[in-house]
């Protein structure tokens, strides 16, 4: 029994019946409403006519309004107390950690954490790391300066709580980081997918096969991780690579288990609804795409109720060979923010990443640019080939990419080769998709 218990971080939760998980979520949802109305100016106004006892089922949850990043910005800008404004759920003196969003889609949102709320986030990450096989015997290298961005802080503190030995690898260049990983015989990495690939690329340039370095597992953060990219990382490092999904505002809310087939929602820490993309009113069925609406249920410093993450995910139902009973997400399809209509076709950049990473290993880096030329939208894939291919890959090569992209996305791409080393290398969030049209025709 004891050995079986070690398989899970918290078997009490992870093996709970789905109806028990839902009961815990609704109980804490009610508590959160009561708390938020009492402590957050934003919710005093927004939920004026809503009472905890109104919440008896998921249907009653769905009657409450959604909020999104723009609501958070409005509740902060120019509102007191500085800098968190009306969302703050504790006294300002209780805030112990400042975090902020990356600002990819506009002005960053400032996120306050009290010590209690921070420990709650760390606990969520303990679930994530444990599911990914991180244990006391791991030496975890984190090749970043974490700055004000939350994911690697969470990973750091959770790995420490698990009993791992954590090596913060900020303030080093990429080659020094590789040397440090080798010197210390690190066994695990926390990284963005992009930087994981870049580290492998640089190791090869140093004459080191990354598969010989000894990294056994990697948890990715900060960017989408399509299957093809994950497989490429696994091949490059000879390691198991795990994904999770989350954000600065709601925390990480779903992650991969050892099956590496879809992501488990971290229940009952979060109540997650996957709603149809058009109306955002009904839950989609297993196998269908929807937008994730997330309520973190134990974080009082920044209460969020029905936060529209704008993450587009495929519902995966319940049940998993790993024995966990939480709901699953079959796939992270992309960001609703990144969905664009190009020549009338709905497009997501993740589709390009799937093709490039799976089928064109000769491409080291790429960038997608959308522009309007006259009345027409033009989409260009700028590719940076491996140095051995020379500056100008063959026309056959370019035609092959273009044809595969056409099949996958139904769009005709212009392919443009650039000099090796000329496209930017990203450490934190990559920005490979550039829509330069004035009217972006969101999907």
């Amino acid at each position, binding site marked *: 029994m004891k050995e079986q218990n070690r398989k899970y971080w918290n078997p009490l939760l992870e093996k709970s019946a789905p109806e028990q998980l839902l009961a815990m979520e609704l109980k*804490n949802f009610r508590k959160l409403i009561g708390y938020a109305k009492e402590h957050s100016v934003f919710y005093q106004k927004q939920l004026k006519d809503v009472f905890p006892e109104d919440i008896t089922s998921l249907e009653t949850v769905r009657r409450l309004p959604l909020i999104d990043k723009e609501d958070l910005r409005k509740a902060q800008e120019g509102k007191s107390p500085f800098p968190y404004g009306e969302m703050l759920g504790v006294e300002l003196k209780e805030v112990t950690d400042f975090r902020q969003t990356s600002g990819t889609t506009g002005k960053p949102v400032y996120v306050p954490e009290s010590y209690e709320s921070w420990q709650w986030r760390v606990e969520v990450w303990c679930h994530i790391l444990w599911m990914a096989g991180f244990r006391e015997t791991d030496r975890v290298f984190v090749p970043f300066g974490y700055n004000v961005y939350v994911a690697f802080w969470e990973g750091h503190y959770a790995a420490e709580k698990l009993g791992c030995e954590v090596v913060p690898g900020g303030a080093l260049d990429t080659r020094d980081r590789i040397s440090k990983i080798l010197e210390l015989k690190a066994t695990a990495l926390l990284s963005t997918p992009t930087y994981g690939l870049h580290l492998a690329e640089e190791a090869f340039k140093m004459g080191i096969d990354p598969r010989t370095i000894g990294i056994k597992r990697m948890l990715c953060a900060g960017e989408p991780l399509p299957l093809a990219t994950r497989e490429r990382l696994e091949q490059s490092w000879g390691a198991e690579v795990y994904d999770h999904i989350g954000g600065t505002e709601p925390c990480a809310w779903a992650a991969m288990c050892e099956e590496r087939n879809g992501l488990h929602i971290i229940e009952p820490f979060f109540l997650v609804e996957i709603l149809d993309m058009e109306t955002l009113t009904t839950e989609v069925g297993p196998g269908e795409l929807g937008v994730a609406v997330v309520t973190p249920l*134990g974080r009082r410093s920044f209460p969020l109720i029905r936060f529209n993450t704008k993450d587009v995910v495929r519902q995966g139902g319940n049940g998993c060979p790993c024995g966990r009973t939480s709901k699953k997400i079959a796939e992270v399809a992309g960001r609703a923010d990144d969905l664009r209509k190009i020549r009338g076709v709905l497009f997501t950049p993740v589709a390009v990443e799937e093709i490039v990473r799976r089928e064109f290993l000769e491409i080291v880096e790429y960038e997608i640019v959308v522009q309007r030329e006259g009345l027409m939208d033009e989409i260009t894939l700028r590719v940076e080939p491996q140095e051995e291919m020379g500056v100008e890959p063959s026309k056959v090569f370019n035609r092959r990419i273009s044809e595969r992209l056409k099949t996958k996305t139904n769009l005709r791409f212009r392919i443009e080769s650039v000099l090796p080393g000329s496209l930017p290398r990203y450490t934190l969030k990559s920005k490979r998709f550039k829509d330069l049209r004035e009217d972006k025709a969101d999907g």
Partner: protein
Amino acid sequence: MGKPREKEERVNLDGMKTIIDQLEQLLIELKGLGGEMPVIEKNVKAMMSFIHVLKFGVSDVAEVAKSENFS
């Protein structure tokens, strides 16, 4: 699919929940005894954060398992 918890397991859950409640009570008392000494106040506060996490991960399970629908 998971099944509602077996009786034996629920006994353990109840035991853990009781101890978590006692720890919380003890910490409140310790804070009272410490007056405003930072060493007590701040360390109690940190420990209370872990109590919050344990209530979420253990006490809630015990409460829900005990409730009518799942007994």
